[in-house]
């Protein structure tokens, strides 16, 4: 980390959420030297399920079995939507690349088949998503066929109650049963944390002991569901070994953020970036960026006296309000690092619709940075603010990822397209104007 002050990077990524991670990863894969600043708390990675596009139009809450069909509808209705500017091929390639990187660092996903999948959640609802971790995939099949199935939970783990799930969905799934067991080694502990169980179960002894305790309770089950605590960095192995010792398909049910699958995804991203030699400044924030003709200089709040990073291109992936990319002042939404113009409703009164629970969402949910086709944010005069400044992920305008169920797709897709543009721009001699 010492020599990085004087180094000139090809790409500097601001933000370590899904978009920042995907941008850094894609940049590094293209052999661009990359530095990333920002803190990616596990919560930013939610449940480890990667949505592409689940719902459109928001007002109708229409769900799609095929995300690409949804996309073509989106492109017609909302041409400014960031995802509308990413081609199908680019999205397919981006997701393939993303999950294969995750697989390479020990977080296997089920093969992508171009379709959305229903996943049972810890509150007994069904979520529609695109890429599913392999440890959850058996659950998707069970959801579809609904045979006799056992849900296991652990005493003291408040995040997941198998009985509650059965109560909620049991009417539609009569073969679903619940049991509760003690987690080995934690018998005397009253309050359990999923992350701790996930690490404990990576020990072969603990894993075998869990299998011992569940095996007599199997009955006529054809598959066994667990809360998502089956390992952290070794989840693939734990899942496989558990299937072997129980002799049945095993699947995980994602819990609420911060969930273990979210932590896995975060850890896997960290590992993948390290493998690609991305230089990271975690626990740091960018306070200022200044540009000259060809080089951007980022100032960090990292160490007293300041630290700076120099890069030939910059990607803003600082998220919206929760991520800290945008802030809502009195009657005005502003961008926090560069004070770029933010596309937003005219007045504060217009931010929300009259009905707060309006399924169509609110105008402010679509606030963000307006960009050109390469995801370069525009300055007030409608031209790119700097020729190699880009923005990816939820900071972009004209999307409502939460309602549209397209968070990861937005992050991954825009990252892919922006990196392509960066790569092109760094190779080409700079055009005049």
């Amino acid at each position, binding site marked *: *980390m*010492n020599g990085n002050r004087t180094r000139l990077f090809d790409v500097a990524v601001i933000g370590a959420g899904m978009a920042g991670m995907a941008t850094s990863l894609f940049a590094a894969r293209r052999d661009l030297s990359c530095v990333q600043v920002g803190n990616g708390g596990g919560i930013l990675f939610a449940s480890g399920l990667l949505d592409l596009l689940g719902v459109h139009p928001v007002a109708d809450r229409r769900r799609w079995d095929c995300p690409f069909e949804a996309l073509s509808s989106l492109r017609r209705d909302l041409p400014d939507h960031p995802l509308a500017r990413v081609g199908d091929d680019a999205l397919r390639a981006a997701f393939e690349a993303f999950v294969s990187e995750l697989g390479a660092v020990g977080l296997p996903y089920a093969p992508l088949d171009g379709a959305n999948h229903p996943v049972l959640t810890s509150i007994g609802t069904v979520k529609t998503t695109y890429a599913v971790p392999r440890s959850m995939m058996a659950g998707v099949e069970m959801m579809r066929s609904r045979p006799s199935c056992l849900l296991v939970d652990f005493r003291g783990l408040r995040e997941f109650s198998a009985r509650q799930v059965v109560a909620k969905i049991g009417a539609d799934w009569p073969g679903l049963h619940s049991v509760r067991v003690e987690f080995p080694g934690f018998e005397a502990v009253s309050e359990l944390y999923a992350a701790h169980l996930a690490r404990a179960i990576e*020990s072969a*002894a603990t894993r075998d002991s869990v299998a011992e305790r569940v095996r007599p309770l199997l009955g006529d089950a054809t598959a066994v569901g667990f809360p998502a605590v089956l390992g952290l960095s070794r989840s693939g192995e734990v899942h496989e070994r558990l299937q072997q010792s129980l002799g049945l398909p095993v699947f995980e049910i994602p819990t609420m953020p911060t969930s273990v699958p979210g932590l896995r995804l975060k850890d896997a991203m960290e590992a993948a970036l390290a493998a690609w030699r991305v230089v990271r400044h975690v*626990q740091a924030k960018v306070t200022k960026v200044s540009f000259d003709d060809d080089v951007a200089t980022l100032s960090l709040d990292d160490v007293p006296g300041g630290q700076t990073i120099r890069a030939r291109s910059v990607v803003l992936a600082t998220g919206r309000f929760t991520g800290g990319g945008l802030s809502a002042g009195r009657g005005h939404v502003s961008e926090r690092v560069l004070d770029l113009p933010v596309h937003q409703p005219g007045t504060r009164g217009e931010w929300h619709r009259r009905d707060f629970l309006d399924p169509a969402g609110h105008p402010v949910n679509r606030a963000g940075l307006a960009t050109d086709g390469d995801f370069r944010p525009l300055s007030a005069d409608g031209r790119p603010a700097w020729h190699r400044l880009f923005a990816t992920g939820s900071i972009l305008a004209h999307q409502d990822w939460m309602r549209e169920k397209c968070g990861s797709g937005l992050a991954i897709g825009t990252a892919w397209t922006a990196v392509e543009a960066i790569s092109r721009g760094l190779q080409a001699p700079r055009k005049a104007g």
Partner: protein
Amino acid sequence: MKYAMFVGCTIPARLPAYETSTRAVLARLGVELVDLPFACCGNTVRGLDQDAYVFASARNLALADRAGLDVLTPCKCCFGNLRHALRFLSQDAGLRARIGRALESEGLALPEKVQVHHLLSVLFHEVGVQAIAAAVTAPRTGLKVAAHYGCHALRPSKVTQFDNPLAPTLFETLVRATGATAVDWPRRLDCCGDPLHDANPPLAGRLTQAKLDDARQNGADVLATACPYCQLRFADAQAGRTDPLPTILFPQLLGLAMGLHPGRLGLPG
């Protein structure tokens, strides 16, 4: 490459082999070490009296500063404490003034330029992996090593600036430079348990055991450390075991690979 050697309290008293092997390896790699009249880094008061701790660290740093040298320490806790002290001094003007006065009464001045490095950072960044690999004459081919990072070098990264705190590679890279294989083990970044050794021995024991089990389960032949506390902790926790997982100090591993006589590395033989 010339540094003030900060050996700390624990190494001379309980693990002299660490100092021996560090000096032997660094001498061979052309790193010069200077001894200054250092005292405790302040570890013993860190959690009890902030000013006293910062003063203890600052006094050592002031000595190195006066000598115009950066500090090299093989101890990760000393490393963390010294670096934290610099950080606290630069952040808190009141503290800075108080410590400045106390230093003045000893004829010293607040440290200004001095930097603090851990042995591993010097090996990695200053000596360089290539130079190390070039010095290796007896590669440890086939030896599977679990590298234990140690908390106080790695975290908080803002202060220690040691490596990427979430997915570090520095130690494994150095291990590979010796010709050995670095195993991947999930608990490699975990705490060894030593700081709880006095306050809560059973809990400390479970932390240590979890790490040892994990290293074994992932096929390690040996556990490599670069901190006296960690090394002693792993050794003590396995005292009496018939099949302990051997632990080795990194400069010993490196020294062996460089063909140094075990006796010069504080090893039997």
